């Protein structure tokens, strides 16, 4: 750590007895404070990305920087290691450059605000939050250029600076930064909202120190971390084996025509420690799909997955960090060298969740989920409206949730925490567009005993000339199914020009010009299926046909034959299932669909797009 924390009062904290009840009270109070941060943010932010969709992440940490409440784990230590100045009471820090904070944030659109919390001149903790800005300048509206080859093309990079110096706002810095953004009002308001949220948490922590005494508070935070560590140690010992398990998956392409890029992870246990080794992951890409992955954040992802998969009752914090070791090869897609472009890291981020899920479930297929965390599809649409005013939309879309041991994957729902869609009536009122269709795609969820969720099809009717950008993945490889379930359907993007011409658009593209009357059909991927589809209740399949979620043809993937009234035909279904049973491989845990070579071969015919070129390093 290179940052220097200056305390006016350097009296050391005493470790005191904290009874279990007080400990629980402090834990709950921290949880409440974190929800208060969210509430403050959503009510005051301006960009639809944050206030409607929830693309922001709160954190309350102990004084060493370990997360006590939050959801993406602590990024404080990355900041402390990257900032060579002083930290004082009243300072509020602001940064966005992933390379200055060990990937605490992973692209320049995420603005991170941190503040050290002091009580009577003594440093007692941290609050922090980062949120995705709609635009931070750079070569394309939205600042996520698909074909950037360096981070210098991706908008303004803010190194760790003091937005407030001992309580005084540094307006000049703010002015300089907002001046680089295409939507300065949104960015300014969103930043204000994030600061207000961090201050809310600060107030709560100080109140707790008042109420219980600072010594008690500090001791309690240590005990909370320790409590989590003990619980996780037990979980790790019982659910991670000493023999190595590996899993590999792909990001389909890099937006410049190369791909797929392999992400590989091997997991094993040594004593009470889990090793997650990303050896075998492809080298960094020339374009912006690199994901500068913070090891601590990955530990958090792993921890939450463990807990949610095996025992959702455990409350998580960073206490278990010492029990996990993360090894990421230098210069790989997950640890690129400066100044590699990073803006479109969302695909790799999503794929890491698929990989983690696969690793954890491999030894215990009953806990295994199918694939579906396939990306976080984005649409950008910008231009000048009829009054000559600049408009700029950044919208996050959703695909299908994978089939799960727990049940079917919901159709068209978010895998990201707290994210929701933007109401279409809101879009139509504030942007020159109509949403002509907003529905899920029948059969796009992989067939299984538990069906994968369907992807979403949105038809955007543009009312004004402008440009669009698209970010998505899983157009080339399939979201895999598990335990006999089929893969989900892949994503597609089609632009229907006003004259009726249809253009297939790549899953990652920028600067596509659209005109009034053009229609974009934006289809996302479905989730993979879970379990043998022939065992799914035939009446349920028939009902889903009547509901428009599965087609009559699609029902045959479950071995279900329908009557003219779309009821299950029992006799015909039994016959079909008997035949299909012969060909189903129930031993196979993962069903990836065709091999990469086969996918390449059929790519143009099936997708309308040239196959990605194998990158050579």
């Amino acid at each position, binding site marked *: 750590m290179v940052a220097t924390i200056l305390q006016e009062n350097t009296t050391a904290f005493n470790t005191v007895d904290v009874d*279990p*009840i007080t*400990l*629980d*009270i402090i*834990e*709950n109070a921290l949880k*409440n404070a974190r929800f208060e941060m969210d*509430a403050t943010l*959503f*009510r*005051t932010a*301006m960009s*639809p990305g944050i*206030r409607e969709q929830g693309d922001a992440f709160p954190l309350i940490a102990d004084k060493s920087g370990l997360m006590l409440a939050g*959801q*993406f784990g602590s990024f404080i230590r990355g900041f402390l290691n990257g900032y060579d100045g002083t930290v004082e009471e009243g300072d509020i820090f602001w940064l966005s450059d992933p390379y200055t904070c060990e990937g605490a944030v992973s692209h320049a659109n995420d603005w991170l605000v941190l503040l050290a919390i002091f009580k009577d001149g003594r440093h007692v903790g941290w609050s922090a939050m980062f949120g995705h800005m709609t635009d931070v300048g750079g070569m394309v509206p939205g600042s996520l250029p698909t074909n950037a080859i360096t981070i210098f093309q991706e908008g303004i990079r803010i190194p760790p600076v003091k937005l407030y110096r001992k309580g005084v706002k540094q307006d000049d810095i703010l002015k300089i930064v907002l001046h680089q953004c295409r939507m300065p009002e949104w960015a300014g*308001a969103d930043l*204000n909202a994030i600061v*207000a949220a961090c201050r809310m948490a600060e107030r709560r922590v100080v109140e707790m120190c008042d109420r219980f005494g600072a010594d008690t508070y500090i001791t309690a935070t240590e005990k909370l971390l320790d*409590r*989590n560590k*003990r619980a996780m140690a037990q*979980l790790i010992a019982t659910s991670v084996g000493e023999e190595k398990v590996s899993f590999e998956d792909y990001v389909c392409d890099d937006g410049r025509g190369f791909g797929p890029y392999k992400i590989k992870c091997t997991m094993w246990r040594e004593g009470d420690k889990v090793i997650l080794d990303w050896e075998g992951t492809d080298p960094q890409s020339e374009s912006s799909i690199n994901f500068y992955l913070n090891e601590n954040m990955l530990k958090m*992802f792993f921890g*939450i997955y463990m807990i*949610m*998969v095996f025992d*959702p*009752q*455990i*409350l998580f914090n960073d206490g278990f960090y010492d029990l996990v070791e993360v090894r990421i090869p230098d210069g790989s897609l997950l640890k690129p060298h400066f100044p590699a472009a990073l803006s479109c890291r969302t695909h790799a981020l999503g794929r890491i969740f698929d990989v983690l899920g696969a690793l954890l479930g491999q030894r215990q297929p009953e806990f295994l989920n199918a694939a579906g965390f396939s990306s976080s599809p984005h649409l950008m649409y910008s231009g000048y409206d009829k009054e000559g005013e600049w408009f700029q939309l950044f919208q996050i879309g959703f695909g299908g*949730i994978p089939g799960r041991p*727990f*049940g079917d994957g*919901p*159709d*068209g*729902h*978010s*895998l*990201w*925490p*707290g994210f*929701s*869609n933007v*109401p*279409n*009536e809101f879009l*139509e009122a504030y942007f020159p567009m*109509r949403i*002509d*269709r*907003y*529905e899920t795609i029948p059969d796009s969820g992989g067939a299984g005993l538990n069906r994968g969720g369907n992807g*979403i099809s949105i*038809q955007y009717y543009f009312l004004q000339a402008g440009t669009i950008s698209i970010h998505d993945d899983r157009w080339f490889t399939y979201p895999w199914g598990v335990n006999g379930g089929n893969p989900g359907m892949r994503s597609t993007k089609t632009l229907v020009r006003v004259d009726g011409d249809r253009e297939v658009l790549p899953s990652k593209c920028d600067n596509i010009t659209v005109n009034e009357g053009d229609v974009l059909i934006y289809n996302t991927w479905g989730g993979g299926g879970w379990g043998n589809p022939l065992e799914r209740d035939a009446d349920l399949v028939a009902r889903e046909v009547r*509901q*428009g*979620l599965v087609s009559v043809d699609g029902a045959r993937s479950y071995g279900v034959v329908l009557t003219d009234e779309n009821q299950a035909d029992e006799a015909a279904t039994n016959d079909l299932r008997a035949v299909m049973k012969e060909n189903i491989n129930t031993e196979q845990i993962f069903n990836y669909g065709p091999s990469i070579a086969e996918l390449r071969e059929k790519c143009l015919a099936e997708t309308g797009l040239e196959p990605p070129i194998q990158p050579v390093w």
Partner: protein
Amino acid sequence: MEYRLGVDVGGTFTDLLLIEEDTGRTYRSKVPSTPADPSQAVLSGTKKICDMAQITSSDLSFFMHGTTVATNAVLQRKYARVGLIVSDGYRQILQIARSLVPGGLAGWLIWQKPETLAPLECTIEVPERLDADGNVIRNLDEDNLRSQLETLRKEKVEAVTVCLINSFANDAHEKRVAEIVREEMPDIPVSLSSEILPEKQEYERALTTVANSAVRPTVARYVQNLRNELRAQNMTGQINLLRSDGGLMSSEKSEELPVAILMSGPAGGVSGALWIARHAGYENLLTLDMGGTSTDVSLIEHGTPRLTRDTEVGDLTVRTSSLDIRTVGAGGGSIAHVPELTGALRVGPESAGADPGPACYGLGGDSPTVTDANVVLGYLPESLLGGEMKLDVDAAKKAVQTIADALGISLMAAAAGIIDIVNENMFGALRIVSVQQGYDPRDFALIGFGGGGPLQANAIGKLTQSWPVIIPPAPGVLCAYGDATTRMRAETARSLSSRLDNADGAEIEKILKNMAGEVSAELAGQGVPKEEQEVQFEAGVRYQGQGFEVVLPCASERFADHGLEQLAEAFHSEHEKLFTFRLDAPIELVNLRVTVLGKSANVKAIEIEKGDGDPGGAEDGTTTVWMDGQEKQATLYDRSKLRAGDKIAGPAIITEMDSTTLILSGHGAHIDHLGNILINPLT
């Protein structure tokens, strides 16, 4: 003589309160609830209380009723089969919902998505389209609609809901669809989203309208039965139901708009608290209504409870006004447990309910509950309900001992810990309604009621620093008090989107007056003459670009002259109060709301006999309690014998028929002229 009857149906008991309007004299009664048909208990209770007062039901001028019949229909998913008609391209509007998966990162692994409220197979798309300003982009294809109605007929829908895109801006297509449905399916009730909720946001509008249709048959059946029975007993007075927002509506109106009574039950408690506090002279208060499985809290400022735009019941959230009541799954029956992995003490949300109930009830329960902890600590006397029920202290000790063993602490420490945790949970809910909304709980009094409120309220007052802590007379039937004393209410809202700096004040004044005219006529139709009506106006305002509005009161008179400026200034300062900052950004007016209220009940509060300050006459011995980490002697009092002006020092326990009030050491209670117990710290 005029009589008002308030009836509140709870899970275990149906509480009744009869008020003689001129004298303020009250009669209270409790009968066991009849969940299979709640009206049975309502009717038998009505008879019982009329007998007590020696009147007949024909003497009742007002019958006012808080009911959980709509709430339970939602919780038990007893829905009508609703057909939904949407714009082309939007069939899956309820299936996709807002795409939100609750539960944090990886929450999707274990989330069970509820079934859509209108089944997808009963949802049809009709070709038509309006733009955001309400202009017709595509005409309604009537023939297509008629042929598709066959699907709804085949699916045997019991109600039809229409929600077309942008219908908040123009209801013409929805109205025409309704006409066609009525022609084709004459026996099926139709609800329009443009009538139920004429506001932007298609999913929320559709869901709210569907919810209304889904609970309509259950509510209508119940309300009609009840009305018929009462009328058959020559009860000719008004029959009103309590709305989620704390107002009343006629029973006929509630059949059309059942979605407005989803929170009718808890709203009664808040209304009752309001009435008590007004007479006792308190304007700002936090309410704490603690029952067996859950606790409801809310905030009242300047005599007005806070409202919220969303009503949440179970997994359903609809956009209708309700009192801003937060519910925590913590009540007397909440079970304490220590999960093995973390070794943390947790209380609730699992509850022992009424059957088997806490271990101390001796009905076969052996889980340690909050009530058991109270028994172990000596806070609950050995017999409850005026001696009708004896508590099994040994069973309570045995149950709580399991927690003590798991934590490695003493029995008393474990019992005190359970109480501390449950108080903390309620404190968390109280913070949401106070601190989180920019209010300092120290500026409020705390009123504790319901079965368990009087027992915990003193301790929670210590946490919130809200003094005095008020325990009203008859805390167990306060909801019925609320039912009997609140006012008639109706409201309407309209979406707008105009910037304050270029809005036309005169135009807005006109809109406000038109809306007021509509609502006023509607309330007149429910039996409230115009001269008794009070009209209130509100505006939803935000910085342009924000997603949430701040609701501010406004006036229609002379709005044209300075309404816009006043609104802007009020908004800046409210935003700063709530969120610590104001912006130099354009302000947008997003909606207007008009509420019309009937006159307040003219019920006198009854005064109790004045004493000399010495409560000796009410003393009923002493008992040993565990408090502040040691054994202490607490004095027992009989509440019915306390007189105005009596002063009691803690530790003390005050008992009455249906509840027990605990006064902690270091605190003192004072009995006011209305019989309220006012608890303050002794400094």
